[in-house]
């Protein structure tokens, strides 16, 4: 695993955006039979998801990230020319080509001197993004950078006949986009992280069609091996959290809260128990926002520390 200690970089602002269209699971399932109602209740009990915000048909992840980034630039009164790097972490880009980060650079009015590129990651996207952007800042003259994370995973779902066969994937995800401003600051507390990648389990969450290995049009949706995801998350993640605490000579009581990727409540509770954090420390946004992929960690921080993100964002 790689061990990272980032000195002199601070996360100066986080903002999150969702649509104004919140749907309960009952709404998602449509006309409710008694069987559907039982399914929705059971799903909420097991995963914690009560509903989600849906992107509009022509609303993309980059639209949410744009709103979040604009909020930060406006509220912090930052001249867009000060931003030296923009990294967009997503698995739901605007176009096949080019990188959506380029579109966002232009739309936000950033300078041509600001480098911009996409990173294709889901659950781990925010922490990897912080690592990437911080490393870039440490080795360059960039003093301010934007990390944009998000996905519109709910959008691809077919709400009709497949619901009952694949309801875990259909009901689990929500749409959102976030922005984080990273700045150089000599007084910043160090950011520690441990990271690893298990490529052998690449099939655990896979969208196999529609790209270049299987170029046939994607009729089927993202496939998820729930058991593999669960065993990986509940065995590998607690160990990394515990090792990170050892690295910093800290214990759970030293932290205000534990912010996990909002995979599902069952996984999150297992990790919380195994790492010695209390239930109250576990920060939760999955109930209202569902699993929002790479934006779930910054969204959960905003949700916990700002009363509401409705209407475009907050930081």
């Amino acid at each position, binding site marked *: 695993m790689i061990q990272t200690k980032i000195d002199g970089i601070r996360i100066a602002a986080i903002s999150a955006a969702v649509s104004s269209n919140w749907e309960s699971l009952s709404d998602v399932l449509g006309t409710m039979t008694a069987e559907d109602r039982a399914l929705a209740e059971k799903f909420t009990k*097991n995963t914690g998801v009560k509903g989600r915000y849906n992107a509009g048909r022509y609303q993309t992840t980059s639209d949410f990230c744009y709103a979040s980034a604009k909020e930060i630039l406006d509220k912090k009164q930052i001249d867009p020319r000060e931003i030296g790097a923009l990294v967009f972490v997503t698995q739901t880009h605007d176009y096949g080509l080019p990188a959506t980060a380029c579109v966002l650079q232009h739309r936000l009015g950033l300078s041509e001197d600001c480098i911009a590129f996409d990173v294709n990651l889901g659950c781990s996207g925010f922490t990897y993004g912080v690592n990437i952007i911080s490393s870039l800042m440490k080795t360059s003259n960039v003093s301010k950078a934007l990390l944009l994370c998000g996905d519109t995973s709910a959008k691809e779902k077919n709400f009709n006949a497949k619901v009952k066969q694949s309801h875990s994937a259909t009901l689990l995800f929500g749409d959102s986009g976030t922005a984080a401003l990273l700045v150089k600051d000599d007084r910043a507390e160090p950011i520690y992280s441990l990271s690893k990648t298990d490529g052998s389990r690449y099939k*655990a969450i896979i969208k196999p069609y529609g790209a270049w290995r299987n170029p046939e049009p994607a009729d089927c949706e993202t496939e998820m091996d729930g058991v593999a995801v669960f*065993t990986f998350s509940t065995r590998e993640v607690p160990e990394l959290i515990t090792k990170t605490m050892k690295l910093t000579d800290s214990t759970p009581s030293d932290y205000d809260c534990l912010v996990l990727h909002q995979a599902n409540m069952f996984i999150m509770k297992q990790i919380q128990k195994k790492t010695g954090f209390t239930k109250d420390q576990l920060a939760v946004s999955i109930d209202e926002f569902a699993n929002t992929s790479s934006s779930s960690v910054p969204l959960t921080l905003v949700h916990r520390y700002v009363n509401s993100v409705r209407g475009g964002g907050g930081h």
Partner: protein
Amino acid sequence: MTDKEKIALLAETIEADEEALKPEALLADIEQYDSMGKLSIIVMMEDEFGVKLDSDTVKSFVKVGDILALMKKDA
């Protein structure tokens, strides 16, 4: 742990009736043996028996008896 006790623990884990969990019963016929049922069994096996099930092992389960056979400390 006797078979009866194992069945009781399994029933409690997935919130099913003990009567439905005879060793020869097909898991595909048990409504509570859904995705969350499987995850609950994984947690129970690790907590109670120290057995770490992986995805392939869970996929290989056909009958209730396949799970019962692994419900022992030295599995």
